[in-house]
């Protein structure tokens, strides 16, 4: 109840400077609203100008970094192919060219690696799903003809340092994906039967490990027919 009465018992402090009660605040000269607005508008304009200039300088560099990082990761998971080709997955088919006007970075992309004889080795692709704390972005390479994986690399994660982030740092876990067969099955560390579909999950990072396995399985499920169809079409 009392807080409803508060405004009436308060002194009229809300009134602008220049009121009847003499105190230190009111001794200040009155500043015109136009000057306040002008000052803030000036600072806003200056800030905008500085940011636009900075953006123009940094944007190409940022895009270049991202492209290089992706290229490096593609080469890493495809085990250093002689060359790679980028495809867009459009309407259940692989296309080498993006539709006119489309943002190529926003499209669903896969990268096909070729060996020294210029024969296709496998596809590298990214996918992200929820991990323990945030989205986990994974890139992996996969041969749809044999169903075997070449390798896996976690590109982005915010998993718990020291526990969940072992999906990046635990070399035994990372290398277990090399040669594993899709669909992957996560098993408790040490409880596996030696089946090639099995991946030992990391103790203390079960949710993060399972997330990586699910990401790869779901992505393969999603594009496997498209990739198979493309490779079969190329051979015939």
């Amino acid at each position, binding site marked *: 109840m009392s807080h409803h009465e508060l405004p009436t018992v308060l002194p009229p402090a809300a009134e602008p400077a220049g009121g009847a009660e003499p105190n230190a605040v009111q001794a*200040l000269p009155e*500043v015109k609203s136009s*000057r*306040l607005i002008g*000052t*803030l508008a000036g*600072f*806003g304009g*200056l*800030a905008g100008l*500085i*940011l636009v200039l*900075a*953006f123009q*300088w*940094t944007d190409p*560099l*940022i895009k270049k*970094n*991202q492209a290089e*990082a992706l290229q490096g990761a593609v080469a890493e998971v495809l085990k250093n192919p002689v060359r790679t080709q980028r495809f867009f997955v459009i309407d259940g088919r692989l296309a080498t060219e993006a539709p006119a006007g489309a943002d190529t970075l926003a499209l669903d992309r896969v990268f096909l690696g070729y060996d020294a004889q210029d024969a296709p080795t496998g596809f590298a692709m990214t996918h992200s799903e929820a991990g323990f704390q945030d989205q986990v972005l994974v890139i992996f390479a996969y041969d749809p003809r044999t169903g075997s994986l070449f390798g896996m690399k976690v590109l*982005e994660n*915010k998993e*718990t*340092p*020291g*526990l969940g982030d072992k999906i990046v740092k635990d070399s035994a876990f990372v290398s277990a994906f090399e040669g594993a067969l899709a669909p992957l099955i996560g098993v408790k560390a040490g409880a596996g039967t030696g089946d090639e579909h099995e991946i030992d999950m990391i103790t203390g990072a079960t949710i993060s490990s399972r997330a990586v396995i699910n990401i790869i399985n779901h992505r393969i499920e999603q594009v496997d027919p498209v990739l198979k169809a493309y490779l079969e079409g190329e051979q015939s």
Partner: protein
Amino acid sequence: MRKQVPAREDLLKGIWRENPVLVQTLGLCPALAVTNSLANGIAMGLATLAVLVASSFLISVLKRYIPGEVRITAYILIIATFVTLVDMTLQALVPDIHKALGAFIALIVVNCVILGRQEAFASKNPVGRSVLDALGMGGGFLLALVMMSGVRELLGNGTLLGVNVMGPNFEPWVIMILPPGGFFTLGTYLLVFSWWRGRRSKARKRAWPHEVTSPRLPEPEEVVA
């Protein structure tokens, strides 16, 4: 009139005696959150130092043109501009560090060390002194982050800047790079600093038993609310 303060004093007070993190306990959010590796601590400290120096300089230059009624808005606008600049620059030049620091770069805007120095110092002092003060406070922040992240990475990962220094038989204390480790480390440092200050003031009392006030108390206008 205030008595003349030597330039050295403006610079050095923030680094040790009035260290923003270890003495004033300001800016604790980044000090706890991004100090899980030395590289992150150094990058965050340098980013904050850059923003602090640039905004102190600009605000001290422009202080006459900023009406008191809108000063906080104007300061935040200036600080946010520099933070965005630092954010874009880090993303362009050192993407790995930028990725590791994540959202905390953007949160430099609300680091109370920065706004505190503008309100308490840069808006009232000449440009030269404001820049020295910012360098000192930013340096002190960097020092505190390095002290914290060094200990946390060493114990929590057995490495320093990614180089293994504890040998292959060391079992990392994983908790030190998790959030509780930040609190343990900061608490230990605060304990040591407060013990050291208490000891020094006792020693001073023994040396000058009749001294009434400590000449080393900060000027009232330099105490951040």
